[in-house]
């Protein structure tokens, strides 16, 4: 709302320049978008949705009058013409008839016919409109706009002689009824739309925009001036459906002043007289079938103190509310406050508390601290989980990234199961943000590509975030690793990242949540390279998947196909269930020494290490404490298709020192079993 400073000064003699006025009003709930120091200075306020009354100079002047304790000089109104009609008992022929059929969509409709002389407005009027941001058109339209900016009441002037039957019918449109609006657009109306029609067809979309056919122009001599109140939700629906926002619709949809329509006519009449643009003919019309009594709200001093935390004197409360236009009466233990019709935002006691607090000044409120009256509940375990994830993964060299939860459909499809569509957004910003991500990997891959394009080859990223699969919204942790597996250093060449790097990182993460016995199982995924793809599980629970990203997929996201990216994604929701460490009991440390035996065997190269480990475990006595692969060799001395595997076996008993003989016979037994089960030869 552009407040024209001299216009404000007509209404209330504010004690300061535009900057100081703006600064003070900014502290009363009217945010200042800017102050312009032109010939007519302007303060541009951002009016919040609850204060349609302040989309007018009078509304803001009333606030200023309250701030500085000054009188508000209301604009001059023409006398109500009801008096003249009462004097002459002769019924006059109606110049204009109003037929209010839709009192739900339009609870009040005032109108008046005028004889007019179309011309241009005087300079002072044009200047004020322009300063307020409206283009002057002609003296009649300019006055309607002036009244709207001044008292907040939108008005519309029809060319009376272009209204069939000189009638205005307020009704709902018939579905499909056409209307060409003032902006020249041919619109098709639906049965929800409130229209102002003449005897034959719609002439305006009520509260939104007039029609082109009844527009006033140079040849107009008589007008029908409309000043009405429309139901906010009806205007809002129509404005949204037609994607048509106007000065009028902005005011009506937030809530007009139901008492203002006659005042709008009388103010326009006074201005027409002042600038010699026209004079009223016929009766003033005001159709208001169900008058609304003013709202009365009880306000307790105790409630003010309870909500604001400050005690405000009764005199201050009365002064503030009265200056804002409320009528305050004393009652037992409270005030009875009549709410003025323009304050559509005030509906209950706390709304009045806000008015008192606002003009008492938030800056004057004391600063206290809410009393803690109960111990706090333990924190959401997911918050602690995410902190642990960050701790572990940053310690492993991964930096945390954040990517959007919506992605391109094309980028999402490889991560959806066959035949499953990603969840789509109904009104996406663009194709790039069309669907909810089924996985965090696409975002991380794009981030790797972003870094790679900027010359950064060694990238380790992770993200904790939501993903959206057919089973719904869930939390996941994803890793992406490309380039070197270690930090570059003069002492050794960098080793490119491989499967076991990302597997190790995933295991480290699972281990942090007590899932130490995880295992990888060969798998296939449409986005991972066959042969370097695994699913990770702990017992019977599937935790996630990992492997090398399909090079073609990397390439499609702008990443070089010949540089591998390894990725992993783990279901974070599994960690909350598994993360409880309350059950932990510290283990007693072994009291007796262990014996180590190294065994090297040659087996088929396709034999999984897990199978070897399994055979060892089942063949070994309970004294086998651990099995670790420490070398894997193919080449000279090992037949083609075979591989040499070296294992370190550690034996230990909890209650005595093992003898060499015991370890030796256990080892022999294990080697025999390996030979039997896997055709393993000892080297």
């Amino acid at each position, binding site marked *: 709302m552009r407040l024209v400073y001299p216009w404000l000064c007509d209404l209330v003699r504010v004690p300061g320049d535009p900057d100081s006025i703006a600064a003070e009003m*900014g*502290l009363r*709930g009217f*945010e200042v978008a800017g102050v312009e120091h032109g010939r007519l200075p302007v303060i541009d306020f951002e009016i*919040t949705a*609850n204060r349609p009354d302040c989309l007018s100079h009078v509304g803001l002047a009333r606030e200023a009058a309250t701030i500085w304790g000054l009188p508000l000089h209301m604009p001059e109104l023409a006398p109500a013409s009801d008096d003249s009609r009462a004097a002459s008992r002769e019924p006059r022929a109606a110049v204009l008839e109003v037929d209010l059929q839709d009192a739900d969509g339009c609870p009040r409709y005032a109108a008046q016919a005028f004889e007019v002389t179309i011309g241009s407005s005087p300079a002072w009027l044009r200047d004020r409109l322009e300063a307020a941001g409206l283009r002057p058109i002609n003296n009649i339209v300019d006055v309607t706009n002036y009244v709207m900016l001044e008292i907040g009441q939108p008005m519309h002037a029809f060319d009376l002689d272009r209204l069939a039957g000189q009638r205005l019918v307020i009704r709902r449109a018939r579905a499909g009824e056409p209307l060409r609006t003032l902006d020249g657009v041919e619109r098709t109306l639906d049965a929800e739309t409130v229209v102002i029609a003449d005897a034959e067809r719609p002439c305006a979309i009520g509260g939104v925009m007039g029609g082109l056919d009844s527009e006033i122009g140079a040849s107009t001599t008589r007008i029908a001036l409309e000043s009405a109140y429309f139901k906010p939700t009806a205007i809002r629906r129509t404005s949204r459906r037609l994607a048509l926002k106007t000065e009028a619709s902005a005011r009506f*949809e937030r809530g007009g002043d139901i008492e203002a329509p006659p005042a709008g006519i009388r103010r326009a009449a006074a201005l027409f007289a002042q600038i010699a643009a026209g004079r009223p003919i016929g009766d003033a019309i005001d159709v208001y079938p169900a008058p609304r009594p003013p709202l009365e709200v009880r306000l307790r001093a105790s409630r003010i103190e*309870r*909500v*604001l*935390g*400050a005690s405000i004197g009764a005199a201050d409360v009365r002064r503030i509310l009265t200056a804002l236009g409320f009528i305050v009466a004393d009652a037992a233990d409270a005030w009875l406050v009549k709410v003025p019709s323009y304050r559509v935002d005030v509906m*209950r006691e*706390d709304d009045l508390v*806000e008015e008192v*607090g*606002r003009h008492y000044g*938030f*800056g004057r409120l004391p*600063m*206290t*601290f*809410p*009393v*803690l*009256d109960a111990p706090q509940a333990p*924190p*959401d375990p997911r918050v602690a989980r995410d902190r642990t994830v960050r701790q572990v993964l*940053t310690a*492993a*060299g991964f*930096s*945390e*990234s*954040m*990517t*959007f*939860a919506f992605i391109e459909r094309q980028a999402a499809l490889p991560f959806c199961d066959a035949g499953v569509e990603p969840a*789509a*957004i*109904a*009104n996406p*910003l663009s194709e790039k943000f069309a669907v*909810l991500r089924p996985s965090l990997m696409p975002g991380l891959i794009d*981030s790797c590509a*972003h*870094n790679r394009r*900027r010359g950064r080859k060694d990238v*380790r*990223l*992770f993200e904790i975030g*939501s993903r959206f699969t057919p089973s*719904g*919204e*869930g939390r996941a942790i994803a890793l992406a690793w490309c380039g070197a597996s*270690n*930090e570059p*250093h*003069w*002492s050794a060449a960098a080793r490119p990242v491989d499967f076991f790097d990302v597997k190790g990182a995933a295991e480290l993460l699972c281990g942090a949540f007590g899932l130490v016995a995880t295992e990888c199982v060969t798998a296939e995924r449409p986005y991972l390279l066959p042969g370097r793809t695994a699913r990770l599980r702990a017992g019977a629970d599937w935790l996630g998947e990992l492997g090398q990203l399909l090079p073609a997929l990397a390439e499609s996201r702008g990443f070089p196909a010949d540089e591998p990216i390894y990725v992993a994604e783990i279901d974070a929701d599994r960690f909350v269930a598994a993360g409880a460490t309350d059950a932990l009991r510290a283990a007693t440390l072994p009291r007796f020494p262990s014996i180590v035996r190294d065994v090297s065997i040659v087996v088929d190269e396709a034999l999984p290490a897990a199978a070897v480990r399994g055979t060892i475990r089942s063949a070994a006595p309970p004294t086998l404490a651990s099995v670790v692969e420490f070398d894997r060799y193919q080449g000279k001395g090992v037949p083609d298709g075979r591989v040499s595997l070296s294992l370190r076996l550690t034996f230990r008993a909890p209650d005595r020192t093992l003898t060499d003989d015991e370890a030796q016979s256990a080892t022999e037994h294990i080697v025999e079993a390996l030979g039997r089960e896997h055709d393993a030869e000892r080297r």
Partner: protein
Amino acid sequence: MPDPSSQIDALRAQFDRDLAGAAGEPAVRAVRDRYLARKGGLLTALLKNLASAPPEARPLLGRLANDLKGYITTRLAERLAEVAVSRRPAGAVDVTLPGRAPSIGHRHPLTLVREAVETIFARMGFLVIEGPELEDDYHNFEALNMPADHPARDMQDTLYLAAPVRSAAGSPATLLRTHTSGMQIRYLETHQPPVRLIAPGRVYRRDDLDLSHTPMFTQVEGLVVGERVTLADLKGTLFAFLHELFGQERGVRFRPSFFPYTEPSAEVDITCSACGGPGNPATATCGLCKRTGWLEILGSGMVHPAVFEAVGYDPERYTGFAFGMGIERAAILKWGVEDIRLFYENDLRFLEQFPL
């Protein structure tokens, strides 16, 4: 023949110069050999020459020469001990070469701010809760005093789902939450006062990507409900929080505003980080705060009685306050980040600037 005593003085002076010029163990040993060698040592030669001095001068010259020999021997021993310390032992490394840094990653700057906020509020006794990012219309709008067709819905342009999706709360969701208030409603529905919590998380609005907008961003909202909670409590809490997050020297102000779910509502500003706040000469031309000296940082207010009614709390018995802050905005103001999109590009050069 020159005067023997001045010869002795000259040799002492020459020795001092030679020793001072000898750096490192080999050079010091060379000085020792030059003066003390049995064959051709300068001091050895001098002592031999003394034999040709007149007999009456010999005792004095002999004493002087012996003093010089003692001096040279002592100084050499001292210097050798000094240089021995700097001798490179076997297996020595060049300690000036770069070290092998263990890999360590960085937390995201938005996480740093979020965790700082969580820590401050946790110390004030606030519970941290998380909730679903997909919401239904009731929890995102209706329960917050924003029924369908409420004009305030325009303030938060919403992204809707083409078809309902099961949210993390297990209920069918129709939209991407525009704020984290929905989970506060969920909390109130299932708990009784007193309530004192913050709810951080990602939120979504239909905003085009530009320097200061992203369609997804991070918010932290707070809620306190009890029998004696006031607007003055809100003011005290937020001032303490902002002073801790942005520094005690930062100016903070509290002014009325409007949100459908609070009454009264307030916005909170902090003094501008670029110009230093109102009253500074730089404020007159400051682009960051649009020449006001103040930057908006928080929205807040007393919980609207209609919200309490929606969750079945008696608004006569309970009052409460709520607030919300954008984490991106806080990070931008804290560190002077020029483009909000940097938070979502994950350029390591950007991420690695922030503390571990």
